[in-house]
């Protein structure tokens, strides 16, 4: 693979609101530069994980090296660093952006500026990147580049002197985009001869090669065989392989200043590859590490337990490995009276939580029971001490006050739906901060909302009251005291810790009643009568009874019927896999999430 001088390297990202066509455009860029042939083409090639392809979203950042002969006749090295589009993965976006000098801002020309468009632009501006707006999906009849261009200029304040219309679907305009990158994105600045400094912006575990890192070489050169030191963790290794994605992993002898690529060094301990760490040479060390990344703080917690308690060590192992691929989630051992040994895990948001759960089940073949998500409460005891509580069942008895996290939520919506959005936010204990007209019929509504309310089905409700037209961005605002109480659920008189919730006092009675009713529909009938009760403190506020199962037998089973009966039993068995037996009662997974579906 030929190398080019530093001034002909361009490191850039693509940023966009979810569904604005970022990955499709990235694929098209790969094709136009000749990185992939038609034969290798697979839609959204950059979405590496099976899960990403299925959900059509990008979760993990990736870097691909693309050789490109520009109109000036010179060969350039374009390093494309893909980024996720969902708000939960903002931290991955900022990490990728730290490895770049420029960013393509993809805006759907049939839609316009959405919440994540704006949020991503701010991240890129923080990194001082050259931002190139491009208008995607011009092949669609509803495309309106002029209107969207005006929105970009007015809402974001970006100059659109050079309009770059394109279509990821047809490939139209891609060539012009590549020329704009060459012309407008500055080359990296690097100390070519200086001691090595490389920023690790992603890491993952490969079962053959150990922990691997994705790096951007800032100063100096990293070559195969080099002895390296990780500046934050202090770990020392011999580099076994260096390489780049083309998008296929390709080994090279060295990564030169300004380059983006991966390395492997038979790193067994997964804790040694810390995202944000600086890599330098062991014998010619850099004085100062690069600025790392701010540790992201998980905001959403849930318990994860193996359905079969024997699988606890497997779950621990899987979490360890997954954590290397995704350092943003936290986990620590937890014991539940109801569910046994498991882990309390922290996530950046609900989607992040779902993805980790799915990856655990799919990639590590585990059957899991997860509890409903909870936020982190700051609880002040009477001695003035503050305790962080991320598990409702652990709420201390003697407390002075509870504070809960609030988010500032920005909702972009067509003006027709303003009323519906305001109503929803008011119901969710929100406080309006402002209403701003982005254009004649697009409105940005800003609310401060308790995060707990955002967790409980808020996004789905928002989508449904706006017919899918709303987009949303949020960031932590701070903590506020509120009248909160712990609601406990009892099954046959025993408190099930995994079903406890922290709710607002004014709503606690109707909520408890609704939750008991909901559970009645979820918990299957058992051999004995089952009582479901809701309690606040020692006071029972609701009771539902599930009648005992008195008859559970198929009357007739002969030759012609055997297959059908067998399939019914198979179904029943599959359902049982997803149940946890608590005391003598089988509780399905769904019950632990009932709280998210209660309308009270």
């Amino acid at each position, binding site marked *: 693979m030929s190398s080019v001088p530093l001034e002909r390297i361009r490191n850039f990202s693509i940023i966009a609101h979810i569904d604005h066509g970022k990955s499709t455009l990235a694929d098209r860029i790969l094709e136009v530069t000749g990185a992939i042939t038609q034969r290798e083409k697979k839609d959204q090639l950059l979405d590496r994980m099976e899960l990403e392809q299925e959900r059509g979203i990008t979760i993990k950042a990736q870097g691909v090296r693309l050789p490109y002969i520009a109109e000036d006749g010179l060969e350039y090295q374009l390093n494309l660093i893909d980024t996720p589009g969902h708000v939960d993965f903002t931290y991955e976006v900022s990490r990728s952006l730290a490895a770049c000098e420029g960013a393509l801002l993809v805006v759907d020309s049939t839609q316009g500026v959405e919440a994540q468009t704006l949020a991503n632009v701010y991240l890129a501006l923080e990194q001082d990147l050259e931002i190139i707006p491009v208008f995607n999906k011009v092949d669609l009849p509803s495309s309106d580049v002029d209107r969207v261009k005006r929105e970009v200029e007015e809402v974001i304040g970006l100059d659109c002197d050079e309009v770059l219309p394109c279509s990821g679907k047809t490939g139209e305009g891609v060539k012009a985009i590549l020329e704009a990158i060459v012309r407008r994105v500055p080359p990296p600045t690097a100390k070519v001869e200086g001691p090595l400094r490389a920023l690790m912006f992603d890491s993952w575990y490969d079962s053959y090669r150990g922990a691997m890192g994705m790096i951007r070489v800032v100063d100096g050169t990293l070559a195969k065989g080099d002895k390296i030191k990780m500046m934050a963790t202090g770990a020392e290794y011999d580099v076994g392989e260096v390489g780049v994605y083309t998008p296929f992993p390709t080994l090279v002898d060295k990564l030169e200043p300004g380059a983006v690529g991966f390395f492997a060094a038979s790193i067994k301990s997964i804790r040694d590859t810390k995202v944000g760490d600086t890599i330098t040479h062991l014998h010619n060390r850099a004085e100062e590490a690069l600025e790392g990344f701010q540790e992201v703080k998980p905001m959403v917690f849930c318990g994860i337990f193996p359905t079969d308690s024997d699988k606890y060590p497997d779950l621990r192992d899987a979490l360890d490995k997954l954590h290397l691929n995704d350092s943003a989630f936290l986990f620590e051992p937890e014991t539940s009276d109801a569910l046994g040994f498991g882990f309390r895990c922290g996530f950046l948001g609900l989607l992040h939580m779902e993805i980790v759960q799915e990856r655990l089940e799919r990639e590590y073949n585990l059957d899991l029971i997860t509890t409903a998500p909870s936020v982190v409460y700051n609880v002040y005891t009477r001695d003035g001490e503050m305790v962080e509580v991320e598990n409702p069942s652990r709420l201390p008895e003697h407390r002075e006050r509870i504070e809960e996290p609030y988010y500032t939520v920005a909702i972009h919506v067509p003006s027709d739906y303003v009323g519906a959005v305001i109503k929803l936010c008011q119901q969710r204990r929100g406080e309006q901060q402002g209403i701003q007209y982005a254009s004649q019929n697009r409105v940005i509504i800003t609310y401060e909302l308790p995060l707990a309310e955002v967790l409980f089905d808020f996004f789905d409700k928002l989508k449904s009251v706006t017919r899918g037209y709303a987009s949303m961005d949020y960031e932590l605002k701070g903590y506020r005291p509120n009248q909160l109480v712990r609601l406990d659920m009892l099954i046959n008189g025993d408190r099930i810790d995994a079903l406890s919730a922290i709710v607002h006092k004014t709503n606690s009675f109707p909520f408890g009643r609704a939750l008991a009713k909901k559970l009645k529909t979820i918990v299957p009938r058992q*051999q004995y009568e089952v009582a479901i009760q809701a309690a606040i403190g020692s006071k029972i506020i609701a009771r539902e009874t599930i*009648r005992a*199962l*008195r*008859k*559970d*037998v*198929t*009357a*007739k*089973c*002969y*030759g*012609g019927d*055997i*297959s059908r*009966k*067998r399939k019914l*039993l*198979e179904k*029943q*068995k599959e359902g*049982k896999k997803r149940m946890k037996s608590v005391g003598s009662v089988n509780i399905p997974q769904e019950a632990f999430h009932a709280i998210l579906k209660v309308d009270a």
Partner: protein
Amino acid sequence: MSGSMAVEKADQRLTSVYVHFPWCARKCPYCDFATVKMAPEAVPHVAYADALLRELQLRQASVEGRTLASIFFGGGTPSLWDAHELKRVLDAIRGAFDDVVDDLEITAESNPASLTRSKAAGFREAGVGRLSIGVQSLDDAKLKFLGRLHDRAGALKAVHEATLEMPRVSADFMFGMPDQTVEGLTADLDAMLATGVHHVSAYALTIEKGTLFGELHRLGKLRTAREETYAEMFFAAERRFAEHGLAHYEVSNYARPGHESRHNLHYWRAGDYFALGAAAVGCLGSESGASRYRNEPLGTRYLEKAASAVRPSDLEESREALTPATRVQEAWMLGLRTSEGVHAERVQARTGRDVLEGREKEVAGALERGDLTFSDGRYRVPSERWIRLDGIVASVF
């Protein structure tokens, strides 16, 4: 070959034959069996027998080396069929097998309304030795509710006359109907058993999808007994049968000693069965698994297909391959329905797979809870827990 191996080999060759007769004089509102209403005078007696003989001929190869274990004419209402035509089919089946067990059990299902004494005599002459009669109830109101064509008096007469003509007679009975009481049920059972019947199948009324009852139930227009009532009747019936000397040998079946349905026991032992006729289902095993076929369900279409069929698959609607693991699952599901239970070694000999494989922990748990017992090489569910059998089977499935 050791003695027990020889027994096992012989056991694997045993094959029952099921012949389906796809027509009834009237379709009952609860019945989800493959049957279509047909006026008795319109039944294609000869054509149907010809079609069955054609199918038997096409399937001759798969009968080779097997031992005929039992024959069952089910339906539908086989008692609508001309005894002479039934005999033609019966004789051909016997002739198709190289080997036949001693004292071959041959059963025909019938309805009190279409079973005259001369009909019973005709079937007996044709070779049938066992009649299974769809009595269902001896309460005229319940019979009307069930859409039956007979009344109490007709049913008792039909059963009694059958016992005079046939060596073995069984009656079907139903419980769990709205307004039925335990006292009413046991009084009916007493009257039924007084006829000298040898075997009774007592079923809980089951609401099936795709039936008139199913539809009414879905619309909230059909009352059914409460589960508690079902359970009460189930145990009351069991006690009453025991007092009369009939053993509870399968969830819904009771017999005087030696009068168990051998044909049905063969199903519950997960034995091989061969099938002929519209909607009939057969299942034949081999070393590597088993294959289950389902014939064209509609009688008239089956007749058309049989006329032009050149291979067995021309008559089939579907075919399903069963892996050894699936066969073991079925052996559990079926065997646990009976008092003789699941014979671990026999199932292994037939399927080539250990019955415990993949369910060691679950079986151990069920044994510990008392849901299962193990003795004389057999796993059983104690009969007092049969009322919850499905959940128990699912736990070891």
